């Protein structure tokens, strides 16, 4: 087993507009099981941040506990990170974001960390529309404790050594939509062509962006009978359409035929193109999205891609009217106004 990665990279590896190579966004060598879907999600995050030319030191990655929550060690090695308590990533992320609104926040969680122990925190994070990319690496089992069924495991699905799961599953995308999330997408770790543009769009979205990524547990839940195996997901996934994300500074080079794609413009000037699949799908219709999810589930399919988005999302800072600047940039005078200021407030309330 190798414990380190060779230092050599491709001599002609491209750089982004900041002059960084893709490997500048990598982290330590993964200690997850070989073939774990989570490593592919890490790879997609690396690729997305590289392609968006984000400055690594302007990113914070926050996680809870679990296989998924270990992964921030394996990407963005030059960014800020906080590996928090089980199911408590949302509250730590909220604190961080309120203190410094200028960073890009990437929350990484798993199905246990979000749909079980962290369900309460998750629900309130969605409601509050914190500006964060929230990625659930969803494998339908508790891999770190040897593969028990998790709350997202489908009825009847069974893991390597288990009986069929008797309980109804929680569909996190449906929950997020119901709770008012303005960016909801589902993807698959084995499909980077879909996942990378989704992560880029999610990072650019100005509020809470939810990504449920089916990420097979190669050790405990990649067997016949599992609905979260590589083979099953590949055979049963159906996309809402193909997502292209065009950042604001980049020229649109692909030509889109009239009516063949939907465009969603973000406030920063970036554009998300949804090239349609076979079905008509309206990105801006929350009820339709919820219906489509249910319908695909009933048909035994997994609906993936961008499910819903509202580019006019107002994030927590806008709603509660906080300081426009990060707290660490405020001066003592701004943080501790004079006695006169207090008197003025009191006077105004008389």
């Amino acid at each position, binding site marked *: 087993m190798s414990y380190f990665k060779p230092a050599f990279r491709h*001599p002609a590896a491209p750089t982004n507009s900041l002059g960084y190579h893709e490997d500048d966004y990598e982290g330590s060598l993964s200690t997850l099981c*070989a073939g774990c879907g989570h490593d592919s999600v890490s790879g997609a995050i690396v690729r997305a941040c590289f392609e968006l030319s984000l400055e690594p030191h302007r990113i914070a990655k926050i996680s809870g506990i679990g296989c998924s929550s270990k992964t921030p060690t394996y990407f963005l090695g030059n960014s800020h990170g906080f590996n928090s308590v089980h199911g408590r990533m949302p509250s730590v992320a909220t604190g961080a974001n309120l203190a410094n609104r200028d960073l890009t926040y990437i929350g990484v969680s798993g199905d246990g960390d979000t749909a079980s122990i962290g369900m309460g925190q998750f629900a309130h994070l969605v409601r509050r529309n914190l500006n964060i990319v929230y990625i659930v690496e969803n494998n339908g089992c508790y891999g770190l404790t040897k593969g028990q069924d998790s709350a997202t495991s489908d009825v009847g699905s069974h893991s390597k050594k288990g009986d069929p799961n008797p309980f109804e599953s929680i569909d996190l995308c449906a929950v997020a939509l119901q709770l008012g999330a303005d960016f909801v997408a589902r993807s698959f770790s084995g499909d980077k062509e879909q996942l990378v543009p989704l992560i880029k769009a999610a990072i650019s979205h100005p509020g809470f962006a939810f990504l449920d990524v089916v990420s097979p547990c190669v050790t405990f839940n990649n067997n016949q009978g599992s609905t979260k195996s590589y083979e099953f997901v590949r055979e049963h996934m159906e996309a809402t359409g193909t997502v292209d994300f065009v950042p604001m500074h980049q020229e649109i080079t692909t030509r889109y035929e009239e009516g063949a794609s939907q465009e969603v413009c973000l406030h920063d000037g970036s554009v998300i193109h949804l090239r349609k699949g076979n079905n008509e799908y309206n990105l801006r219709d929350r009820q339709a999205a919820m219906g489509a999810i249910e319908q695909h589930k009933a048909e035994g399919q997994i609906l993936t891609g961008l499910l819903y988005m509202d580019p006019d999302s107002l994030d927590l800072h806008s709603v509660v009217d906080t300081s426009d600047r990060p707290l660490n940039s405020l001066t003592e005078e701004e943080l501790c106004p004079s006695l006169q200021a207090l008197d003025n407030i009191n006077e105004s309330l008389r």
Partner: protein
Amino acid sequence: MNPTNIADPEYFHKVVDCQYACPAHTPVPEYIRLIAAGRYSDAYMINWESNVFPGILGRTCDRPCEPACRRGRVEEEPVAICRLKRVAADFKDDITARLPTIPKDKNGKKIALVGAGPASLTVARDLMPLGYSVDVYDEQEFGGGFMRSQIPSFRLPEEVLREEVNYILDMGLVTHFNTYVDSMNSLLEKDYDAIFVGSGAPRGRDLEVPGRQEAASQIHIGINWLESVAFGHIESIGEKVIVLGGGNTAMDCCRTSRRLGGKDVKVIVRSPFADMKASPWEKEDAIHEDIPIIDNHVPVDFVVENGKLVGMHFEKVRAQYNARGKRTLVPLDEPHVFVECDEVLVAIGQENAFPWIERDIGIEFDQWDMPKLNEQTFQSTLDNVFFGGDAAFGPENIITAVAHGHQAAISIDRFCRGKDVRDRPLPGTTLASTKMGVHEWNFDNAVTSDRRFKVPHADKEQTLTDRYLEVELGFDEELGYAEAERCLNCDVQTVFSESLCIECDACVDICPTRCITFTQPETEEQELRLKLTAPANNLTQDLYISDSLPTQRVMVKDEDVCLHCGLCAERCPTAAWDMQKFLYSVTKVSKL
């Protein structure tokens, strides 16, 4: 595009860049691993089986392997393959017991070898163990050919040469030294079953410009002069020496001159410095010994005053290249340059010459007066006469001569047994997993970041006064180990099994040089190259393409800068990737 046929031994052979580039196809990574393991004798024997003269080549080889080395594409410098070969030779034990046994009962076939250089000695090495009786003829006093007469002792000590030449002579060859073969016809009359001509390219090219005749006593042909030095006939030279030419012979001439009393020695060459034929390291060594290399100077005449050579005139030129890269030297509009000298060594190339082969005995010659040969079998138009080494297709180098020798020996053996010489044996190959545990391999797959280590040199003052003192000291065991660790083990192949792959992308994500891509198949290679994860611009390196996967995609691996680190296989959950050692060996007529 069709899936790559990895059953074709040449596919994986090409991945082992060094071995593929070597004319004798020595299994380089295999012996480098043995050096790292301290098994010097084993490393030496692998070399000896393949290239016959490891100690000599470890000092003097032209190293076609090194420019090919993958490491040079990954970082700046290739592995010091040549000097590692020397490490094996320097630190081996007595290997005489491991040499092939020569049967006492001969097979009744008699072979004559003309010339006792590397090509002929290789033929002898391959045929003697089969019971052939071999006679070798050479005009020199000892065996070794150009390895003895052309390569100065400060690069190749006499004892190293003698040891490796004697391994072969001691097999029981009948040597006819001090014997110049002056007639092929009379040799044919001696009833040999086959004759092998390995007489080299013995004629040094001369420079016919004004003053050549008048100053003849102070002008020497480089290869003849080196030979006279090697055999002790010349022991000194004037203080001011001009060496004309830009090849390795010129480098040997100038450095030898420095040791025989030359104080102001210059190399003057027509071409630009970068185009010179000499190996970069040879040029470096010459410059290190205070020998300036003056390029873009074309000789005009020898200047003779009072019957004595006093200098030469040169015309300054600049190189111009046309669209196809062909060079012309364009004179500059400047007065001729005069360079003072006492003696001139002309090292501007060498030619083949076969004045001793009668042209009416069935051996046909082509328009360049070279024997017409079959390029695979080395057989001439006279069935029982074979050529090899420089005598076959013009001046090359030792390792090429060895490669020729092996092939000629196969031909001679088949000829003597009455079989078709065009029927060539296939190479021997093995491909075996290196898997030891779940993610463990029986080779050291960690890739060191060390840069190429320099070979220590002896003190310059001393080496310039003693022409027998070897300049390079060679790696010691510690440095040899460190340098050996730089080898990327390109012979441990990344073998992909479509049927096992679950397309989890783990290999794509982990690959440090991003050489793996899963994508839709394409009909044209150029299209496919554009779709790969990392730029795939090196068209000399192949793409390894799998058969169709369940998603209808294919796995494409660009072999160009694969580090053979095994991480793809370590991160593969289903062992669809495996690290398998590929050993390719050119079949010789006798097995070691």
